[in-house]
């Protein structure tokens, strides 16, 4: 069956919905329905794409059916369709959370309504980045998601958000500039930006220049993914946004960077894995990130540091450059998108129930058992406690690393184990302080889930449920991830793109 025309749906539907929600600016309830339905539909289409890509190999669309490979190609292979699926699940759930205040932060007189259109554009950008079949379109995908993220991170324009937002915007603009520079160098040297044509043409270049391009792209994607030493902007910018926004940022945006690194390493530079460099970077990312988390007294900031830290795990698998390593990384990405989002969402609930996200001001939340479970399950998952997916991902990564039998890989395993322990310590401290310890004398607020809209609780439970479900479906999921890894190592991508030429 020809499913090519389905490939761009995860981009087009949200954009259409963004247009509609802008027109419906005066009808917040309808806006919510439109964006909720759209994102749900996208998830369904993504699932179809995922299953189809698994059954019949990469699904390719040459947009506009231009001959000679002139046009833009969109590719849903196992990896990208899986990423689209997971990200659409996350966005479909998160869109439920923004409170009325977040959504209508702009006054009646504003020329446009902000939250829903921008959020939908963001999801379109994320999907586009995953599906892009050439370097320039990847850049466009990045820009879409970046611009909408600039808007979302400063939602409400409080002093802290504008301050944090400026950090984020300036760093992102710098990285976009570098990306553009890299693209112009690539196009200058090879005369193409297509992922399918580049491998051959890049290989024909002077090896020194190849390395320059690879390192420059690595810097660009490294900033996005927040890997050492390019990570310091992230904890300064993410935590101040509304919890639901931070949840999506933390869950998805860094993973887009990681995804781009995978694409680049496997597709463009398959013969230059830079294993040692990346392993060192992975180790430092893990350790510095988690040490940062231990030094925090505010939950969202603490979680932002764990986010940085765990990017190191994904990089570890990529650095190995083996099928096992990549498969493990892909599994870990899926796990981390869901868990990190779930945690931030739950922190949003904590903020509502407890009135703060600062550990110094929280306490006694254990008297709300459902909230306690909702926090503890993903927190233990992040902390690498079995049988949750974080543990399984780490087992897969360690397995892949030890199979290479190099001292540096062993060191990375040790660093990974240490990070796992420190992550557990970090999330358990939050538990001890916010849930177990009583709040001080001034505790006159009644802790109850009743202050939350019921749909929030349901949606958060659903998301946490999905993170638990990962354990149950770990078998099929790892199989899928390894098949995806075999795909990207085996050149299925290039072949499929060329076969699909109109």
């Amino acid at each position: 069956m020809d499913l090519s025309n389905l490939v761009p749906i995860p981009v087009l539907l949200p954009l259409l919905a963004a247009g509609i929600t802008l027109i419906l600016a005066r009808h917040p309830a309808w806006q919510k329905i439109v964006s909720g339905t759209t994102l749900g539909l996208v998830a369904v289409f993504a699932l179809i794409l995922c299953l189809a890509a698994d059954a019949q190999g990469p699904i390719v669309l040459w947009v506009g059916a231009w001959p000679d490979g002139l046009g833009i190609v969109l590719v849903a292979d196992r990896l990208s369709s899986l990423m689209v699926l997971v990200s659409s699940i996350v966005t479909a759930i998160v869109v439920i959370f923004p409170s009325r205040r977040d959504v209508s932060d702009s006054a009646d007189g504003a020329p446009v309504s902000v939250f829903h259109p921008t959020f939908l554009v963001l999801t379109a950008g994320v999907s586009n980045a995953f599906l892009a079949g050439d370097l320039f379109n990847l850049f466009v995908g990045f820009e879409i998601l970046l611009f909408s993220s600039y808007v979302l991170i400063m939602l409400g324009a409080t002093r802290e958000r504008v301050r944090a937002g400026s950090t984020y915007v300036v760093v992102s603009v710098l990285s976009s500039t570098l990306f553009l520079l890299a693209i112009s160098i690539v196009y200058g040297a090879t005369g193409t930006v297509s992922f399918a044509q580049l491998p051959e043409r890049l290989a024909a270049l002077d090896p020194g220049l190849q390395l320059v391009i690879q390192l420059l792209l690595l810097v660009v994607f490294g900033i996005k993914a927040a890997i050492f030493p390019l990570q310091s902007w992230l904890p300064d910018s993410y935590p101040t946004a509304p919890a639901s926004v931070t949840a999506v940022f933390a869950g998805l945006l860094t993973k887009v960077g990681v995804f781009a690194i995978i694409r680049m390493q496997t597709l463009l530079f398959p013969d230059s894995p830079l294993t040692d460099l990346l392993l060192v970077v992975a180790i430092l990312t893990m350790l510095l990130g988690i040490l940062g988390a231990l030094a925090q007294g505010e939950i969202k900031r603490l979680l932002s540091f764990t986010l940085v830290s765990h990017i190191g795990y994904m990089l570890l698998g990529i650095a190995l450059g083996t099928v096992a390593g990549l498969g493990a990384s892909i599994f870990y990405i899926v796990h981390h998108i869901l868990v990190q989002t779930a945690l931030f969402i739950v922190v949003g609930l904590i903020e509502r129930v407890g009135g703060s996200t600062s550990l110094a001001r929280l306490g006694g939340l254990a008297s709300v058992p459902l909230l306690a479970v909702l926090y503890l399950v993903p927190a233990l998952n992040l902390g690498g406690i079995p049988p949750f997916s974080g543990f399984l991902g780490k087992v897969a990564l360690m397995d892949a690393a030890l199979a290479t039998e190099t001292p540096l890989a062993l060191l990375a395993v040790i660093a990974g184990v240490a990070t796992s322990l420190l992550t557990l310590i970090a999330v358990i401290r939050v538990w001890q302080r916010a849930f177990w310890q009583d709040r001080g004398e001034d505790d006159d607020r009644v802790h109850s889930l009743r202050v939350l809209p019921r749909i929030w609780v349901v949606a958060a439970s659903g998301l946490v449920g999905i993170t638990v479900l990962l354990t149950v479906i770990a078998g099929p999921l790892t199989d899928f991830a390894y098949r995806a890894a075999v795909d990207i190592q085996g050149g299925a991508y290039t072949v499929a793109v060329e076969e699909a030429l109109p």
Partner: protein
Amino acid sequence: MLLTVSILAVLGVVASALSSRLGRFVFLLPAAASIAAAVWFGMQGPAVAAGEILQERIEWMPALDIAIDLRLGALQWLLAMVVLGVGGLIFVYCAWYFESHTLASRTVGLLTGFAASMLLLVLSDDLIVLMVGWELTTIFSYLLVGLNHRSASNRRAAQTALIVTTIGGLTMLTGIMLLKAETGTFSLAATLAEPPQTTAAAWAAALMVVGALSKSAIVPFQYWLPGAMAAPTPVSAFLHAAAMVKAGIFLIAALSPAFVELPWWRWGLVSLGIVTMLLGAVRAMRQLDIKVLLAHGTVSQLGLLVTVLGIGTHASMQAGLTLLAAHAVFKAALFMVVGVVDKSTGTRDLRELGGLARRMPVAAGAAILSAASMAGIPPALGFLGKEAALDAALRDAEGGMLAIGWLAFLGIAVGAALTVAYSLRFVVGTFFGALVTEPKRRSRILVIAPVLLALIGLVGGFSGELISQLLEPQVEAVPAGEDAPQLALWHGFTPALVSSMIAWLLGALVHRSFGGRRRAPHGQDPLERGYHAGMRALDRLAVEVTGRTQTGSLPMHLTTILLVVVAFPGIALLLSGALTSDVRLYDSAGQVATAVIVSIAAIIATTTRGRLKAFMLLSVVGYGVALLFLLHGGPDLALVQALTETVFLVILVLVLRRLPKYFTDRPLRAARYIRAALGIAVGTFAALASLAALQSRTAEPISDGFYRWAYEFGHGANIVNVTLVDIRAWDTLGEVAVVLAAATGVASLIFVRRPTAGALRRSPSATGRRTWLRGAFTSEQLASPVLEMMTRLLFPVMMTVSIYLLAVGHNAPGGGFAGGLVAGIALAVRYLAGGGQELLEAVPFDAGKLLGGGMAVVVLSVIWPVLIGGRIGESYAIEATLPLLGDQKLVTTLFFDIGVWLIVIGAMLDFVRSLGAGIDLHSEQNVAPRPQWRSDRSLPGEGVRR
């Protein structure tokens, strides 16, 4: 087996929920399940003793070779019986123990979950699944220890227990992974069948043993266990006496067939075991809280188990496992008795206890029987085990391993003496002597479980033969030592018996001398102090490192990124040799002149302090670039660049009204030259890298095909426009989405809901001033009639130009983007001439409608070909002969371009409304910042709350 685990797991999840309905009887659910399962396992006993292995397997993660693979051998059988049998009785006990409903409902779920994970741990053959059970028991232990989390010391104890055992668990995981790398399997049975002999495997074994030691509270990890006594007593009985702490012992027993011949195995285990045994026993002698006394006793007993198993022979395996069973039975019973005492008297302090034997004879009987087993007094099961242990150590000494054997023998003997002493301290201190505290309540049901366990301990003493048979398969698995002798109460007058008797005597003496002491224990365990110091050091390290790496300063973030660019790709470029000197510097003199002007403007812009000046210089750069495009033969690019530059300037000027006149230069001064050097380095890299790229071009660029196909396939003469709306329409789609997002962003920043902020709406035109524009300023002061008139004339012209550019774009310079910008500038002019009201007059609806409508048009124009069987984004040409216009060709991409045009106009409208009219509104309401004259600061508006 799987069924049992699953039933318990499900019960664990639902039990807490059921407890509101069933009350205390909810504990009977897991109790019944456990006991029924224990009966089933008991019935498998004969088969297991005959060496059969029961196996159940479910695939879990085939890609990693992980499966839920349960194997019931003799060792697993023993542990399963302990977990289910002792566990079942403890559940029964729980039902009458808890009084607080919330506490009970939490406990039942956690405790049942624990039982399930413990069973999984002991039954699993797959080491990863074993690890799952292992860590889950740790977590359940953490939550159960912290059940009473109001007290800070309880919380601390729970955390310590968690972290210490997790450190061990992760070490063990590393070991498992290393082992897997050697053997290629996670299966314990497969590993035991062919033990790997490599150094890496030895390391793996060592790491796994570390995990085992931490779980079983062996020195240097022992301090967490006494702290864990913060848990309710039944929990301590189950987790911290009978089951969980046995996990490490279980692992050592399971691994020893494969690794017992490693040079460090026996020495390491025997010496650590002895140290733990003696330390625990000595500490137990000093405790006043009888529960903590028992906890130290547990530490000591665990040390004994490790010592015995560490000997690593047939006989020692048999003795060790017997002791394991004995300990589980008597220690659980003792803890439950402590619970009974605690409940009836309200205290566990030896200073307030005494003489209870007369008041609570049944409980005292159970305690005495169990304590006898603990002290190794015949005919209890404990005696049987301890005799066998002493005997095994002696045999070892005779069988060649002289030093280890004697060391173990002496250690066990001394340990036995001390055990007698603290058993006496417990029993005599609690039940004999003068009555201190009168028991308040009687709890007949509560004593059932301990009495049953005490009886089991007694009966066990007489079933030596049966135990020997049951354990035989596991005992035989050890590759060292001669055949184990059959267990029996009476072996004759052996050296082991003699030493046992000496131990009783010594123990009684020690009790006589020290057992009466009632001084509170003081001082902290040095190892525990070390742990806390370690945690503090970790915190310090975290703060130090984070303080250094996370400065929170934007310039530092940027500097780091740019340094990385110079250090990695930059150095790589220098080393690559991809640069050649073959450079064509320019094509025409015009390019040189423009380049010089642009460069000078850019350099001055970096050093200027005035905002307006800097913006003007940036515009020079922008227009210069447009000129370069034009000189290079790109009129479209030049047009768009020039229009964008104009829009940029207009917007900047709108913003500038409310910004301070100067940039601040305070933080820049110090590191100015370093920054300049970095900037120059990055700029040089960018230039050289681009140059090197162009010099090494090997293939024809893809755009060569555009010349031909743009007309033949795209039906347009203007390649740039065909590229934008057709070849790379997908990119354009993305870019207009960016424009849309930017528009919403600007609006959201300006139109923040503030207490005083109102809305833009049409105010009735009150004055009678005749104006050129309907919505023009009503105040004579602001109005500029000339500008109004110009605008009146200019606006229709500009709009016509805009539509013209849109229409001809496909074949001549122009297009939706350029057209939209022209229309946008026209709107800006109307705003400048007449203010917000005039803009509202020009476009009487919000910009969102234009943006949204444009977006919808764009998306639909990309999707529609699907309806006629085409590809998404495909374009068609419709040729028609129209009256007056003659032959006309309409390319469907025009619709796409119209969408782009709408979005650009919408965005422009939004910018002008927000940055123009929105800021006007803020000024009127005094919420906009007020720039200070000749300064780099502005003051916040007075109407702003924050």
